[in-house]
């Protein structure tokens, strides 16, 4: 009887969907797996110990983290307003949030230069503060911030939307001010979404190529000249060809995946708790 149940025929639609879906999953996983498993550990180690490579990785991780922190400070309030308030022009702001995803990144870089370039408004203002954006870490950071902020904004907004407004209302009647309510109720309950948005934002920022290429190809990172890893990878490929680019590529993908998987596991554990 039990056996009969186990071989119960699967629905034809499910079968077709599994085949199509599996092809899609394979298309995504295939190249990654191929690349990771076709490189020997020795070449990976050699590549990682190369100064250009590890400085580039450090600089990329640092800039993406910096951008994410700025995103948290300015983006979380915007996400909260979007989730809770109705205001004139809300629809426009909603559209605005997705624009960095939609416009070509090289074009985004150029647009940023027209504002943050040393000859332009924001650029001049920051120059007084001693910050210049062209070919500098600051440039890398704003390029990353611009292209990756939608991930944090959308995740944080969803997070706040999933918090029942009544919880906030109850907190208010219990005597909590709006600040107390935000920091003790709304933020802790939306935190998982926000953290997951931060990871995506960080990872997306670290993987940015086009906007950084335009704004800050080479930068001075604590005394070392470096370019972000995505540019490093493309440079190797363009200058020396596929085989030579492989170890760096594998390292970069490996690190991205490791961070991503570790944080997914961390988030899941917290959820289970």
């Amino acid at each position: 009887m039990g056996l009969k149940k186990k071989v119960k025929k699967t629905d034809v639609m499910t079968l077709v969907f599994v085949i199509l879906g599996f092809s899609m999953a394979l298309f995504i996983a295939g190249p990654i797996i191929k690349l990771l498993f076709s490189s020997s550990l020795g070449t990976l180690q050699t590549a990682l110990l190369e100064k250009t490579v590890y400085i580039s990785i450090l600089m990329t991780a640092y800039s993406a983290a910096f951008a994410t922190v700025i995103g948290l400070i300015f983006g979380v309030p915007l996400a909260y307003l979007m989730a809770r308030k109705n205001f004139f022009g809300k629809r426009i702001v909603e559209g605005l949030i997705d624009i960095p995803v939609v416009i070509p990144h090289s074009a985004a870089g150029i647009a940023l230069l027209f504002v943050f370039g040393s000859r332009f408004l924001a650029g001049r203002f920051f120059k007084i503060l001693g910050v210049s954006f062209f070919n500098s870490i600051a440039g890398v950071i704003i390029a990353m911030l611009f292209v990756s902020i939608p991930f944090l904004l959308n995740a944080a907004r969803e997070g706040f939307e999933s918090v029942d407004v009544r919880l906030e209302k109850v907190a208010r009647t219990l005597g909590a001010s709006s600040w107390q309510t935000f920091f003790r109720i709304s933020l802790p309950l939306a935190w998982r979404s926000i953290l997951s948005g931060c990871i995506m934002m960080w990872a997306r920022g670290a993987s940015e190529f086009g906007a950084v290429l335009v704004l800050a190809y080479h930068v001075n990172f604590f005394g070392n000249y470096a370019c972000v890893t995505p540019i490093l990878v493309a440079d190797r490929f363009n200058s020396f060809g596929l085989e030579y680019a492989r170890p760096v590529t594998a390292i970069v993908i490996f690190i991205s995946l490791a961070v991503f998987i570790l944080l997914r596991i961390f988030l899941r554990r917290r959820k289970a708790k």
Partner: protein
Amino acid sequence: MIEISGLKVDLGNFALRDIDLQIERGEYFIVLGPTGAGKSVLLEAIAGLYPVLEGKIIIDGRDITELSPEKRNIGIVYQDYSLFPHMSAAENIAFGLKVRKTPGKKIKEKIDYIAAMTHIEDLLERKPDTLSGGEKQKIALARALVTDPDILLLDEPLSALDPSTREKMRYLLEELHRELKVTVIHVTHDFEEAAVLGDRVTVIKSGVIVQTGSPDYIMRHPKTEFVADFALTRNVFKGKVKKKDGDYAEIDVSGATIRVLTDKKEDVMLSLRPEEIILSRNKFISTARNCLKGIVLEISNRGSYSYITVSAGQDFVCMVTNTALDELELKKNDEAWIVFKASAVHVF
């Protein structure tokens, strides 16, 4: 005392308007109405959680209309409990005390006291998602009461519970109200709930107050057909005054003539509660009573009692306990007499 005068609140499609209520300190006040009448919004407006367009809310002479919610000292309990999911029951209850910077020792005392009142001593360490509906509701009550609010607002607190839990929660509400002497405003769409719990009831329809009074009065003297319907009066007839006879009048409802006590003339509405009608196998004559002969159309068993529909010109619905029904040995299509006092008929 809570005085609400000329309150107007925007509800999108329509407005809660001309809301005037006086609620006494310590009263158990019920706001009754169908879904979408604006009952919950009224509660949130009182708590300062929903913006008020016009009017005033005054508690013990203090105008709180413009006050932010955390300064009003009003507790609220929602139908879906709204416990903070990231805190244990004890932390939920402590929240209101902590934000008031109550000292830790005092917090413990207050929690122990309110936990004993609401019978949740052994639930304090549990997280909300491990609790049943009734348990959650008790913790939500404890959380709202621990800060000694001037008013306790209850938004359909019993609707999400199953009948036997609802029963117990009803007793708890009565008990808490009695012991803590807190003013309660309780919103519901269930007339029975209003009848059991309420000192006074106000009936709201589409944002407007239709009638306010004791549950018993509203049940026996509905002002409109809507209220009669909502109080499950079941016998509501249109009629015409035919003959006056001292205090009595004979009223023609198509198919039957009913004696009532009234001064009204011409077109009237009559309402008669099913429990006011006595079923009998025999005729029964008295000037103070109506006695009509009819046929049993339907017997609808409700567990402990039944509704019997008797056609006597009009269809009359009577209520009898099942024990009484067994003794009458009444079946469908039997002949029966229905008897009710002239004074039991409400004319409006």
